[in-house]
């Protein structure tokens, strides 16, 4: 055994390294955020929210991209959430120890962290090739597939936290199982389930890769789901890689908008989640 002084020395060195790691890691993340806010805010104006994406070299806004993103997100959530909640309900309520649940849980966890660009390829093959053109609906479908695993996971986790005694009490007064699930289990797990949906929205609002070759992009105002549709992340991608300064500035502003939206959603989700814990 090394001497006490040597052990203390090792401890001091290692703990300093750990603190240094924390400082090092947080500094990079702080630099990124500061740069983003600095560059993003300098381009932020009313025009961003009222004008269309401009042709190269002139001024404009991001209105069509923001609208496209919102529309596809809403559709994706509207489709993905009910399916996700139902699947989560099966795993936590009806088939808790069933083999199917275990398989679905495993697959769902893999889908949760699978590369999103692969989802894009899948939807391209399924919808873009069949329909013959890029479309907003394909983009929404890709996003819905990304919403699904998040909602399934949180729904299942939250329903499993509901004490069985509550369910038994419901059954004891003669309520059929689905009424128990709907009016007892869902009600008890509501806050957590909403958190899951919010986290899912936060996740898809910044997704770029699956939209690149499903919704493609659109320079003009369009809410036609059967046509290519602009979205904020893809517009950022295109503008950032362009040589035009006005486009690059818009890309930074768009990045700031997305980041603020994602941070706001995560914080709201967190507040919802912590309310649940304390109550």
């Amino acid at each position, binding site marked *: 055994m090394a001497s006490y002084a040597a052990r*203390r020395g090792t*401890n001091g060195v*290692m*703990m300093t*390294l750990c*603190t240094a*790691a*924390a400082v*090092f*890691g*947080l500094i990079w*993340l702080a630099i*990124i955020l500061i*740069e*983003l806010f600095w*560059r993003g805010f300098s381009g932020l104006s009313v025009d961003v929210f009222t004008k269309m994406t401009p042709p190269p070299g002139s001024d404009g806004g991001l209105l069509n991209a923001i609208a496209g993103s919102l529309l596809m997100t809403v559709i994706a959530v509207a489709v993905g959430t009910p399916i*996700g909640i*139902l*699947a989560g*309900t*099966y795993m936590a*309520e*009806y*088939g808790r120890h069933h083999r*199917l649940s275990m398989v679905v849980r*495993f697959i769902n*966890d*893999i*889908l949760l*962290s*699978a*590369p999103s*660009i*692969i*989802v894009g*390829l*899948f939807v*391209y*093959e399924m919808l873009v090739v069949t329909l013959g053109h890029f479309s907003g609906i394909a983009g929404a479908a890709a996003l819905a597939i990304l919403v*699904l695993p998040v909602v*399934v996971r949180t729904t299942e986790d939250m329903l499993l936290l509901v004490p069985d005694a509550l369910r038994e009490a419901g059954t004891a007064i003669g309520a*059929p*199982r*689905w009424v128990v*699930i709907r009016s007892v289990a869902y009600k008890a797990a509501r806050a957590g389930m909403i958190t899951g949906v919010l986290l899912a929205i936060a996740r898809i609002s*910044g997704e*770029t*890769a699956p939209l*690149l070759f499903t919704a493609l992009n659109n320079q003009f105002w369009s809410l036609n789901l059967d046509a290519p549709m602009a979205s904020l*992340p893809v517009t950022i*991608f295109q503008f*950032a*890689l362009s040589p035009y300064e006005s486009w*690059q500035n818009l890309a*930074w502003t768009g*990045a700031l908008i*997305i*980041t603020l939206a*994602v941070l706001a959603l*995560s914080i709201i989700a967190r507040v919802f989640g912590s309310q649940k814990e304390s109550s």
Partner: protein
Amino acid sequence: MTLAADTRSVDPVRQRTLSKFATSDIVFYNLTRAAAVLVLVVLVGVAISLINGSLPALQTFGFSFLWTEKWNPVTEQFGALAPIYGTVVTSIIAMIIAIPVGIGIAVFLTELCPRPLRRPIGIAVELLAGIPSIIYGIWGLFVFAPFLQHTLQPFLIGTFKYVPGLSSVFAGPPYGIGVLTAGLILAIMVLPFISSITRDVFLTVPPMLKESAYGLGMTTWEVTSRITLPYTRVAVVGGVMLALGRALGETMAVTFVIGNAHRITPSVLAPGTTISASIANEFTEATGDLYTSSLFALGLVLFVITFIVLACARLMLARMKRRAGA
């Protein structure tokens, strides 16, 4: 239900309500089960569509697709070696940096950080884990790559110029963009991910174990390295592999800064490409079935790699969870 039917003569209203209950229960049960099966169908569908899409390429090139470096859209010669190489190298760079730093942050958060700061810093790290990758990409392109071009890269080239072996690893003009830059961005990106998972896992160590070790006179480092890490080893490895899966499949952060060059050079300062960056850059511009199909085949390779990594990660995390529950 049977009790009601047995004891009283048929009350039509009651009977109808009961059977309505039974039907709606069955409907709801099947609805939820169908939704659960749909999750499976999605994954199977992804696999089938990738295989289907990559069939022409695989039929043309066979398995040599995997170890051919050539990627020439003009002569329609495609091979996956360069993107696979780029994917692996950027992920290795990212992991070499992110694993020690991430675990360091977790140790800091669980052992060293003053209590009032623990929650805020922990929450900040978790929020940062949720920031979309395109943000890291745009920052990498406009800020980080020029910064590296003028500082780290000339330094590396100058320092290792006469060191045999390393001179070719850090060779070439400092472009700014390239394999090393992509790896570093990935490291910054997966950092919050690794530290928040590791911290969660560290918190599952029973306080009793740690307190006994402290009671025997161990230092904080000894408790961490001999109690916490061995106890959580499997789950930490699982968390790291989860992060690896993310790094392997990461698209946007890499696409901005990798340079998209289909070639293999020993120098990490040279531009390269990864599987996901190739798909993102070239897919919409791909002309000809064979080109598109080759990109699908790349996607299939990525899918198989990440599936294996993620499956291992989940199994390891599940093992830890079972033990914690038992």
